[in-house]
């Protein structure tokens, strides 16, 4: 019983939030890694691309809500997400046409792309704030919980509850579906294979008749779709505020680099590594231990490795460690 209580406590504050957060990071990191693998640069605008896609999704969600269109217990945002993806894809294709294509034709160094993407990041950030404002936006509707902490206690008779939010459930399920679709696309379809070929060796791919413009366009569309899905899920689970999406850039890049830049499998693993480390290192274990040890062994302190203020620092430290020990990431990526 005591063991189950400890497990429930740990699930409520560590496992469930980390799974949801890890899924969101994984989707974000997939977008970064895809752009890196095929277009060969670190896209710093990815966080704000997420904000842009989410913003369009939110606007459509509000429109649907005002027309009385609902998905029952599911959030209306899921219905609006395809429109968000559509607009976001159009937006990134436009930035590619206006900014990146120029550098591609000149075969510029990756660092020039990187700086250009910082510019795109600021412009996107400005556009999002200009359209929807810098404040928190609320767009979640439908049911809020799959199971509430109180209900869980009644159901199991434990003294610790586990609450699972609907948004957390949707996040994890959507992540699995999207990842499965993405891998099927990359491994089984002709376009996916041409993308991988282009990524492996650009010149050889061009010689074998692969249309580079098409590969680039498909990459951007996939990146936009991943960004919008990740952003919308994050917004549903937590809240939408343009600035927090900008801040997400660090854990997302950490996830992509830890897993191995350019390696989709690595991005997913990296997302979960970062999410679990961030949450497990800043969690206070006092009560978990209290369930596991005899009464007088219970510590006075909180048994917290690091204050929650240092959450982002955890990403930094992991990033540094990986770059020192395995510069190519846990799974072999292209390297930084």
């Amino acid at each position: 019983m005591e063991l189950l209580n400890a497990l429930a406590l740990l699930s409520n504050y560590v496992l469930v939030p980390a799974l949801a957060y890890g899924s969101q990071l994984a989707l974000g990191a997939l977008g970064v890694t895809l752009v890196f693998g095929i277009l060969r640069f670190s896209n710093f605008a990815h966080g704000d691309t997420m904000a842009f896609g989410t913003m369009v999704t939110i606007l459509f969600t509000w429109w649907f809500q005002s027309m009385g269109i609902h998905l029952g217990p599911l959030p209306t945002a899921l219905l609006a997400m395809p429109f968000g993806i559509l607009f976001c894809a159009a937006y990134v294709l436009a930035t590619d046409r206006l900014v990146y294509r120029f550098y591609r034709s000149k075969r510029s160094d990756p660092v020039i792309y990187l700086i250009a993407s910082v510019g795109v990041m600021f412009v996107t950030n400005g556009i999002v704030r200009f359209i929807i404002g810098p404040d928190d936006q609320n767009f979640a509707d439908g049911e809020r919980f799959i199971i509430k902490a109180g209900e869980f206690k009644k159901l199991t008779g434990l003294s610790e509850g586990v609450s699972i939010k609907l948004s957390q459930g949707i996040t994890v399920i959507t992540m699995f579906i999207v990842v499965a679709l993405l891998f099927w696309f990359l491994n089984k379809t002709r376009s996916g294979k041409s993308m991988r070929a282009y990524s492996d060796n650009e010149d050889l791919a061009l010689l074998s008749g692969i249309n580079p413009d098409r590969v680039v366009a498909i990459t951007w569309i996939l990146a936009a779709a991943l960004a919008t899905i990740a952003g919308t899920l994050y917004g549903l689970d937590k809240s939408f505020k343009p600035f927090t999406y900008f801040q997400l850039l660090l854990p997302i890049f950490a996830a992509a680099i830890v897993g191995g830049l350019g390696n989709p499998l690595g991005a997913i693993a990296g997302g979960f590594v970062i999410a679990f480390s961030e949450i497990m290192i800043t969690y206070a274990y006092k009560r978990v231990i209290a369930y596991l040890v005899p009464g007088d062994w219970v510590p006075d302190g909180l048994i917290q490795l690091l204050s929650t203020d240092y959450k982002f620092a955890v990403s930094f430290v992991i990033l540094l460690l990986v770059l020192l020990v395995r510069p190519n990431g846990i799974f072999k990526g292209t390297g930084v």
Partner: protein
Amino acid sequence: MNKLIISAAVAASLASSAGAVSADEIKIGVFLGLTGPLESLVANMAPGAETAIAEVSASGKLLDGTTVQAVRADTTCIDAAAASAAMERLITVEKVAGVVGGDCSGVTTAALTNVAVPNGMVMVSPSATSPALSTVEDNGLFFRTAPSDARQGVVMSDIIMDRGFKEVALTYTNNDYGKGLADAFQAAFEEAGGTVTINTSHEDGKADYSAEVGALAAAGGEILVVAGYIDQGGKGMIQSSLDTGAFDTFVLPDGMVGTALPEAIGPDLNGSFGQAPGTDSAGAGMFNELAEGFDSTSPFAAESYDAAALILLAMQAAGSTDPQKYKDTVMDVANAPGEKIFPGELGKGLEILAGGGEIDYVGASNVELIGAGESAGNYREIEIKDEQLTTVGYR
């Protein structure tokens, strides 16, 4: 030369439009956050102060018919450099005789110590509540019609004790206001025999507070005190606590009291309680009738009226508009003994002072200055019932 002619012409036209009053004209600075995080409150605070200034000016009884003009300046609430520059402008360019403001504790401290004290200017703040301002080196130039949060900490501790809670967790927004209030509360609560299991900060503007709530839940406590902001991290902390089932009752200090909170959280918030500055004195009702074009019940609007009134009454008592002279009479006009003066009766107060009498300014917020010149503080105890903010008493 040209500029001189133009400014002379402008001055002449201003003088003629002001009427045929031959006596002096003085200016009072209204130094509030016209932009920034407090702008929605300042929209009612600035007109509150200007109502008192207009009332005195129209009465014609201040120092043999001196007229008074309000000059606005922006503190921005957050940018200490911009606030100091604005204060500099009020003193050196506008040549004000006194300043109502500033609003937020951080910028008020900066403008006071950098500009007002070196220039010998009196500041009366309607809303800076940081306990640190009680002990700041001010040469007797700083007053406030808002109470220090040290006082709010004691009131909050009393309310929690009266409801029978002995063990609380405490989280505050990581700035001067949050830290000051949290420390004041912890000291008062522990002195009264309670236990604060954890006293930790949260940052505003984050999307996710589950990690912070996890630490609070690990420390335990019957209820959670949230010394934060209603539309920032405070709301996030409450939402996240409810989501994970960590806490179900919350104590809400002044930064968290507002109708927006029960609207955003819903029925789960029922039973939470707290306090905000407020009084049931007769003055508040009289101020209500004076208010034209602004909401007189908005937080700190009454305090703003009182801040402006105090400056002008102190000038009358000292017989001078020189800050170095009237700074010593502010406490005299604010406190007993003397005739009680309510909003709308400033003319009467000026007359009594001119005749050598004494007044006890009560004003819209039941002004009683204590210590280094700050309001003793009156609080409204609130509770969330049926998703509504209800007043359950005054302290």
